[in-house]
């Protein structure tokens, strides 16, 4: 799920509070598709991605664009407003109870020796790998992808070579939102969600992105793995309620000694 965030962050340098809430919307969309149209979330995730892409473009074009020259911190506020609207619209429409999408896959578990392999998690993991690869291909092998990376590296440079920076930003923000939407749909059978779930999702994502390295897709991916391993180890060897301590300590250590993340490019 952190893949969406790296892209938004890497390209826009936006501190995006609305990210978690967008993901919750991806989950609710999957929920609606599953309950109304009987579509399994493992098939419905592209629909959620498309819907969130549209939302991302609208937010970028309508709200972020007009204040792009304002102090950077203003965007925090803007996204906070957007997050509030998203969270409470979900509350209004879907109510406060925790929801979860039922998928036949999510009930399966394979017993491999002493281990239990959760089929749903395995599928989610596989799709995440595929999405990461597809995104890397897009960013490194297509013209639009190269332009996105160029604008992220150097805003004015991109302007100079005549790129339509606004359109590129809108696309990038949209793609980021689409990843978030797809991720939401994919975890909806595993993770129960409520309208306020967004905040903790945002925090976890930031964590993963920083540990892995900003602007690096592979890094975000490895970061995700590291965080979950650290938390599991914490839960096994110490009190499980302290397990978040490990991911935050890991974050601090990484920030201090490798601020660009494990796989990030070093920036001066």
């Amino acid at each position, binding site marked *: 799920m952190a893949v969406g965030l790296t892209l938004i962050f890497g390209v826009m*340098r936006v*501190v995006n509070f609305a990210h978690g809430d967008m993901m919750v919307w991806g989950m609710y969309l999957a929920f609606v598709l599953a309950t109304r149209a009987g579509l399994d979330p493992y098939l419905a995730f592209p629909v959620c991605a498309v819907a969130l892409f549209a939302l991302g473009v609208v937010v970028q074009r309508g*709200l972020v664009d*007009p*204040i792009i*020259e*304002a*102090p950077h*911190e*203003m965007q*925090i*506020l*803007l996204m*906070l*407003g*957007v*997050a*509030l*609207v998203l*969270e*409470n*619209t979900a*509350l*209004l429409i879907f109510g*406060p109870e925790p929801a979860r999408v039922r998928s036949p896959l999510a009930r399966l578990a394979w017993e491999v020796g002493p281990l239990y392999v959760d089929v749903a998690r395995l599928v989610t993991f596989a799709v995440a790998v595929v999405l990461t690869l597809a995104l890397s291909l897009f960013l490194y092998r297509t013209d639009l992808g190269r332009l996105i990376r160029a604008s992220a590296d150097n805003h004015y440079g991109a302007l100079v070579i005549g790129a339509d920076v606004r359109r590129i930003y809108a696309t990038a923000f949209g793609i980021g939102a689409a990843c978030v939407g797809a991720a939401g749909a994919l975890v909806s059978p595993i993770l129960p969600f409520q*309208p306020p779930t967004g*905040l903790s999702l945002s*925090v976890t994502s*930031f964590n993963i992105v*920083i540990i892995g390295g900003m602007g690096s897709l592979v890094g975000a991916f490895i970061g995700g793995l590291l965080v979950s391993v650290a938390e599991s180890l914490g839960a096994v060897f110490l*009190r499980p*309620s*302290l397990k*978040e*301590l490990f991911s*935050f*300590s890991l*974050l*601090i250590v990484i*920030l*201090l*000694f490798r*601020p660009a993340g494990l796989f990030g490019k070093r920036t001066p």
Partner: protein
Amino acid sequence: MWAAALAVAVLLALPAVLSGYAVTIFILIFFYAFLAQAWNVVGGYAGQLSAGHAAFVGVGGYTAALLFERGVTPWIGMFAGGALAAVLGAIIGYLGFRFGLRGFYFVLLTVAFAEICRILASNVEAVGGAVGLYITFTGNPRQFQFQDQRAYYYIALALMLLATGVTALIERRRFGIYLTAIREDETACEALGVDVLKYKLLAMIVSSFLAGLGGTFYAFQNFSLQPGAVFGIPLSVEIVIRPIIGGAGTLLGPILGSFILTPLGEVSRSYFGQSGLHGAHLIVYGVLLVAVVLFLPQGAYPYLRKLLSRRNIA
């Protein structure tokens, strides 16, 4: 100067005519303006965005409340809390500045420390764990408790003025000039031989000490402390958004921001919170927040100043 004196005089006289709820709103405005002003020293002037200021409020509040349980009056506990918060601020600041974390990386460092405080507070039984601390209401002024809500009004007002005074003092001295210079171009400052680390660290200590004082006020006005409420990200966000909307790095920005945001939240709740549409008032608040940002993208205080100077020229 005259305008400021007049404003203070009005605020001093106001409780006589306000309803209890209005007094409470003003307390919130002053209190958050105070925390915002504390943040402003390091976040606004020095440009080191901290998104973990809740940690200082929490440390201050917990210290005072725990000392109170052992018979120490919060009037003393308040300063002990401020001092401990300053120590935490110094540690975070030293690590962050020593290792050269800037911008968003510093934001994350502060968030991570605040979250670690929250997790520790929820797991250590000696400080109440996840249940938190409950303070007995006595209404005894010696215990920082008051039967009359207006006493809190004056204390909150005093805190706000104190922080603003401190900030004004800093602004006028060399210290303030250095801070602004560091915000604008840290590398150039270093090249000119300014001890950047020292000044940033000082700003962090002043800021966290003030926020720590606020913790006592929080604890003895709400009578309960829970890890999620005082160390959590939402409180840090409340502290940060006020100076940003008012104009970070300006003396009046945090106060203006608080006078804009607190009433917005309360008004949308009083008018839209009664309907059967749960959440409608927060949607309204969110929309208003977005509208304010689009309307005042540079912050309220810079906008006002531009408006005033335009009048003066015309």
